[in-house]
């Protein structure tokens, strides 16, 4: 499947883009992270410490073991600092 993958804040800066299309067979968000890590060093760096990474699937905050079946958009970002 083709997913739209978004990155925000320092994840965006480390990966060097805010948005890309990713062709993947990953079953879960965590599997997608593994695929990206294996792909290039900049992903490995960005995803080095997953305790500081949050994910959303189709704009809903989700745990990393969430399945990707039916998903169109996945986003990765640090813990939020609004307010």
């Amino acid at each position: 499947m083709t997913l739209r993958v978004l990155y925000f804040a320092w994840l965006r800066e480390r990966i060097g883009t805010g948005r890309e299309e990713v062709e993947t067979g990953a079953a879960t968000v965590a599997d997608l992270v593994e695929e990206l890590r294996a792909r290039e060093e900049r992903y490995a760096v960005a995803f080095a410490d997953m305790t500081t990474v949050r994910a959303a699937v189709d704009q809903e905050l989700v745990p990393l073991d969430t399945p990707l079946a039916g998903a169109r958009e996945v986003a990765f970002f640090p813990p939020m600092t609004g307010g």
Partner: protein
Amino acid sequence: MGDPGPTSAAALRILVTEAEFDLAAEAERLETGPETGAVVTFLGRVRDVVSEDGGGLRHMEIEHYPGMTERALEAIAREAADRWPLAGVTVIHRYGHLAPGDRIMMVATSSRHREAAFEAAAFLMDYLKSRAPFWKKEVTADGEAWVAAVEKDEDALGRWR
């Protein structure tokens, strides 16, 4: 917050904007109806920070996730309106370039009585802090740095469960 829950009569107003907002006009918008006895507003401002060389904050950049931001704010507002008997809930959050002293965001709540208005406003702020997709970067003379999430902001959610 996935469950929309019971339909509340509260008027929700959500705004994500680069522009300055009018706190007074927003508060007055909630001063309506014969049953509204209490209106609470919270305003968040950009504080100055002292950098290592003694200089202060030059500016702040706020990044957000268009689309998800509005959904998250609406879910937070709806949750507040389901938990407390509110007449109105307003949540406004800015993004982009902000200078020290600028307004960042506001919430406003109205209700018959003070307790609901106060509690709902504090709840909205606690959820906003760690559940709305905003990220702050501070630019000082030393360079720029993403503001780290504060553990006590996450802990603050505990009291609403």
